[in-house]
């Protein structure tokens, strides 16, 4: 991302509440029209960062630029951003129409023009005819849409969303995820979305910033975050991951491999090793990258183990396989293809199981 593309530039921003350092030092760019998520466990600073974009919190150090303008001295009511609050903050004393039209006061519109804009928004959020409903007659999902409409009617440059789906039940949440993504494509506004739900972030986002302890660990597309995490923390936070200790072995400039505890030697192309000979590394492999078989597979990297535990989850099963040289059993996730197809569910009495994998699936991370 080049600077000219960036709609939001966060430059060396720090935030302290008294002696507590909420944001350590964060720099990143968010592009025009992007669906960008801030993902992390509670207390990681993602909501603080969002509130700094909205102007509800000052930056202790650093600067935030929106569309090229420094935001330090701009109060919330003058920023070109609007927010959907976690509690939705629907005004209880106003009906739906007056809630959505709330921000239009300064636009000098006639009543008819305002109502027309509100009706357009009600169509957009699929609640036509709801204008005269009272706020307390609305369900959680409806409140969420009204909050969206109230923010979008002002055509902000950025829409900030603070865990807007957190209060909804699972089914409604999945439906709203799809609608939110479609809505964002339709209006073309940059969305900055805060969530602690990694699945939600992967489903919705163009790019995700993974945060922890007030730091940004990695900013990347969902696929690259999952397939090529840059640190153990990111790898462990997004999905599940098996870790093995290893050492880089380079054979001059011709070929290389990683010696691992448990998985044996894994040959890797030199451009993926990126570390000097003898460097300690962690080798990471996702559970679904392993293939299980009862006999040693031909021509693949494989290691034998014993089944220590299994869990049947319907579409897939989780197996925990103990292998030599590895203290914790390896987690393996394997699709259930149906009775008589694929591997029949193994039991601990079946004898040795073979784990195989492709070198492409291997991720190298810095040792602890």
């Amino acid at each position, binding site marked *: 991302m080049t600077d000219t593309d960036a709609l939001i530039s966060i430059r060396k921003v720090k935030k302290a509440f008294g002696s507590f350092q909420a944001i350590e030092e964060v720099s990143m760019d968010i592009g025009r029209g992007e669906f960008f998520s801030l993902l992390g466990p509670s207390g990681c600073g993602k909501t603080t960062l969002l509130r700094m974009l909205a102007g509800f919190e000052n930056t202790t150090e650093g600067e935030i630029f929106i569309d090229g303008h420094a935001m330090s001295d701009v*109060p919330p*009511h003058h920023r070109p951003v609007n927010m959907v609050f976690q509690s939705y*903050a629907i005004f*209880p004393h106003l009906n739906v129409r007056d809630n959505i039209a709330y921000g239009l006061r300064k636009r000098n519109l006639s009543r008819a023009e305002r109502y027309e804009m509100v009706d357009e928004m009600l169509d957009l959020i699929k609640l036509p005819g709801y204008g005269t409903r009272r706020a307390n007659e609305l369900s959680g999902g409806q409140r969420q849409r009204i909050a969206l409409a109230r923010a979008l009617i002002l055509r902000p440059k950025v829409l900030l969303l603070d865990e807007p789906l957190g209060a909804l039940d699972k089914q409604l949440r999945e439906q709203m995820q799809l609608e939110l993504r479609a809505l964002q494509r339709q209006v073309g506004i940059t969305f900055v979305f805060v969530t602690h739900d990694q699945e939600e972030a992967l489903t919705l986002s163009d790019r995700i910033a993974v945060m922890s302890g007030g730091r940004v660990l990695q900013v990347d597309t969902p696929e690259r975050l999952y397939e090529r995490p840059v640190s153990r923390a990111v790898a462990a936070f997004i999905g599940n991951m098996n870790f093995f200790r290893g050492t880089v072995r380079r054979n001059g400039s011709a070929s290389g491999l990683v010696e691992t505890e448990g998985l044996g030697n894994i040959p890797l192309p030199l451009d993926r090793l990126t570390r000097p000979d003898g460097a300690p590394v962690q080798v990471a492999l996702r559970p679904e990258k392993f293939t299980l078989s009862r006999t040693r597979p031909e021509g693949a990297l494989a290691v034998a183990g014993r089944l220590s535990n299994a869990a049947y989850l319907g579409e897939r099963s989780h197996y925990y396989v103990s292998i030599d040289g590895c203290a914790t059993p390896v987690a393996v996730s394997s699709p259930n293809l149906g009775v008589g197809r694929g591997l029949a569910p193994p039991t601990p009495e079946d004898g040795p199981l073979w784990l195989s994998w492709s070198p492409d699936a291997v991720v190298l991370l810095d040792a602890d």
Partner: protein
Amino acid sequence: MSDGTYIKRPNRPLQVYAVIFLIVLYVPVLFIPLFSFNDSIYVRFPLEGWTLKWYGELWQREPVWNALWNSVRVGVVVAVISTILGVIAARAITRYRMPGKSALVTFIMMPLVIPGIIFGVALLVLLSRMGIPLTLYTVGLGHLIVCLPFAVATLLPRFEGFDPSMEEASADLGENGWWTFWRVTFPMVFPGVVASLLLTFTISFDEFIMAFFLTGTDPTLPMYIWGQLRFPQEFPSVLALSSLILFVSFILVFLAQWIGRIGLDETKKS
């Protein structure tokens, strides 16, 4: 005992106790309206017949109207000022983190338990030292001290049940602090404001001790009643006047309670 849960089961002795409690509390008060309709200047049984003449006499008496007008003026001004101060205090208490907040709240509430006679004497000494003459203004000042804790106590739950993101949402949608207050904060706490106005008006209207120390030449209604107690022949019209005050106070306090709760349960629920 068969129906109702453990908490909600009927408890006969407790119900009887509650009824007796209310009777003991209010029967003495009910003698006042009862005797105000009695066709005799002596307060004693048996009643000698029903009459409205004491009310009629009251109607024609100039000083009653003056005293009423004084009380209404003081009451309205005190209600408005104490409610404004109450709104400011309640907002500050609920919005800002400040050291010694609970001590501050205690100090604001203190006049509820400090005897009025102490405040009355203290104010009287202070005012006379400063050479300020006793007028309805000094009565109003005394009433402000008495009324402010009630205003704060009425408004505080309103502000406490108030989601701070409501005001942030308004700022986010482009309104500054002033407009946010009038478009969001005030409408949301409005029932509390009305309740506070009614309650503080009633308290000021009925207040005697402060008025006793701080009244100059213009009496408030309770002061007028106090003055009339010396004249036995005036006693029935005093009863009539007291009955009217009792009636109006009941209405206002019930109204204040009812309005003060509007919407409060809903916001707690959601």
